[in-house]
């Protein structure tokens, strides 16, 4: 009888014979693996090519997102390859309605050892998890649905530069959503006219006005001019109201050096907040978060570009993963959906995003798309931003779905007011304060909301006019990014 050692050597020789073997036989499929507390876990939605069985597809994803290449290499044997291999350990069919005619999809859980990742680098995490594997031929489509991030790993990230708690303390604004607006038209205004919109909206009652994602430095408005006029507007409005006011100055630019230059200029003018776009990339975002922490600046992130990969359910990255990465990267504000506005957002999915950004700890909740329990390791809370097609008449729904730690941004819903921008801002602020007062009094705002608004409009003409102007505006379309699991109604409720 050969000893165990000899046997192991023989099977290793077998395993490493040059040639091509299925990924599942290379060690990337381990159905009995128990993930460690320190493992990073990724949940993928896989649509295998016809003829590829789901376990092999999952093993291929594990392999290609960790150590594997298409063929056996003897150099694996120079490493502790058992540890470095990612392990697909669970595969389940995605629940689908029978007769839907859709191709079968599978959820695959894959565990990665912590040492596969550089501390404090979202870019490195992304390069591993989504680096190569999304173009892999053996799978037809692939979506990164969710990730479990161990505390040990989160502790290597700075997290939000300011966070909800300190942002509120700096602004001296508590117990209600913050109000904002995006300057419109998005493009074409001169700096002087642009600042006019900012001043009117802030004096009328908003807390913030915002550059749009594509306002950088165009021929019609150079960035320095915009910054100068906007800060005149911010300070004028602060003096007119006795409140701290702000304008998100978008410092997005072609190079990191230019972004720093713009951010420094914003700081020198006394701005409390700067903004960047998601398209600048993970590393630039992390750099700006460090800059914001060093310079006592709130950092607003516009999720420009995210719907190119987050919206369709079969391929791409779920926005909840982007929420997690951005909390690690260190932004203070992130656009995360409105439920009722003009942009994509199923209520349950949006709740999952908001919880991911705001809570210290989130339990697993399949109906909200949260597949893992997540402890946020005291990383600051991110303030979600609701923006796009919302107006004062929806205030009760916004408060019900989104809670009070959120920035509600009414762009058209402020600037499009028939009585002017100040009146538009006032309408939103009065609607908001009336709704908070009523909620705190114990009233059911979702049901009584329209009455509460009607009552508040009796002492506020701008609100009366806003309600009359936009009363019938809704964006009632089917969401594409929805939960795969719906809660079963309890009989009798």
């Amino acid at each position, binding site marked *: 009888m050969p000893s165990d050692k000899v046997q192991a050597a023989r099977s290793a020789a077998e395993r490493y014979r040059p040639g091509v073997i299925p990924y599942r036989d290379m060690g990337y499929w381990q159905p009995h693996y128990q993930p460690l507390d320190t493992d990073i876990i990724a949940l993928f939605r896989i649509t295998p090519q016809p003829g590829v069985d789901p376990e092999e597809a999952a093993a291929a994803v594990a392999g290609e997102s960790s150590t594997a290449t298409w063929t056996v290499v003897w150099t694996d044997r120079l490493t502790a390859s058992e540890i470095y291999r990612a392990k697909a350990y669970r595969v389940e069919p995605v629940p689908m309605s029978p007769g839907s005619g859709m191709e079968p999809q599978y959820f695959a859980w894959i565990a990665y050892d912590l040492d596969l990742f550089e501390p404090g680098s979202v870019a490195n995490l992304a390069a591993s998890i989504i680096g190569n594997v999304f173009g892999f031929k053996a799978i037809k489509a692939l979506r990164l649905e969710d990730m479990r991030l161990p505390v040990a790993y989160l502790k290597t990230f700075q997290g939000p530069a300011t966070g909800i*708690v300190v942002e*509120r*303390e700096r602004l*001296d604004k*508590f*117990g*209600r959503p913050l109000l904002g607006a995006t300057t419109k038209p998005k493009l074409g205004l001169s700096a002087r006219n642009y600042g006019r919109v900012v001043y009117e909206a802030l*004096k*009328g*009652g908003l807390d913030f006005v915002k550059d749009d994602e594509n306002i950088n430095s165009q021929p019609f408005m150079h960035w320095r001019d915009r910054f*100068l006029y906007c*800060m*005149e507007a911010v*300070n*004028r409005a*602060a*003096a*007119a*109201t*006795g*409140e*701290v006011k702000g304008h998100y100055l978008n410092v997005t630019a072609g190079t990191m050096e230019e972004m720093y230059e713009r951010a420094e200029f914003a700081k*020198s*003018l*006394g701005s409390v907040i700067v903004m960047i776009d998601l398209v600048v990339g993970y590393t630039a975002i992390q750099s700006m978060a460090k800059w914001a922490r060093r310079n006592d600046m709130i950092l607003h992130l516009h999720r420009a570009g995210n719907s190119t990969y987050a919206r369709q359910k079969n391929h791409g990255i779920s926005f909840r993963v982007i929420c997690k990465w951005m909390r690690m990267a260190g932004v203070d504000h992130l656009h995360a959906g409105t439920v009722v506005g003009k942009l994509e957002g199923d209520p349950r999915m949006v709740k999952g995003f908001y919880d991911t950004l705001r809570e*210290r700890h989130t339990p697993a909740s399949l109906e909200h798309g949260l597949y893992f329990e997540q402890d946020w390791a*005291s990383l600051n*809370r991110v303030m979600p931003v609701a923006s796009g097609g919302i107006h004062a008449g929806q205030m009760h729904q916004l408060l019900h779905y989104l809670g009070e730690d959120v920035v509600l941004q009414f762009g058209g819903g402020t600037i499009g007011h028939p009585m002017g921008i*100040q009146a538009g801002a*006032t309408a939103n*602020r*009065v609607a908001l*304060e*009336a709704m*908070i*007062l009523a909620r*705190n*009094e*114990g009233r059911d705002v979702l049901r009584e909301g329209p009455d509460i608004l009607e009552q*508040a409009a009796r*002492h*506020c003409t701008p609100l009366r006019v806003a309600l009359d102007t936009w009363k019938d505006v809704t964006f009632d379309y089917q969401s594409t990014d929805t939960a795969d699991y719906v809660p079963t109604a309890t009989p009798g409720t």
Partner: protein
Amino acid sequence: MMTNYGNRITQGQFSFLPDLTDAQILAQLKYALDRGWAVNIEYTDDPHPRNTYWDMYGLPMFDLRDPAGILREINGCRSAFPNSYIRVTAFDSTRGWETPRMSFIVNRPRHEPGFRLVREEAAGRRIRYTIAPYATDKPEGERY
């Protein structure tokens, strides 16, 4: 005179609504107490938006769980400082918050003159802005 909506300083949760009645204040206090937050009464005659530390009217009422009792304290503060700003804050000591969760004004001076915006022109069209309450030209206690 201030020229914004309501001609008044708009700090706090409810400055855009008509002044709260005692019954409305009681309901807000109940909301705070039901969540285990400690209510604190503060007053000032310097309403600068960065004036964080208003004077405390006694200590935060950690152990007072009756809204009516707190309203009595508010009215005590109102009689002692009838022409000051008075705000009610509710403090949440839960881990991860440890910060005010509510803040609203319950008393104002009869006349609110507002703020002067001072512009100091600097190089490159840059301007250094300072906001100063007109009232703080006078010493503390003699302002309104």
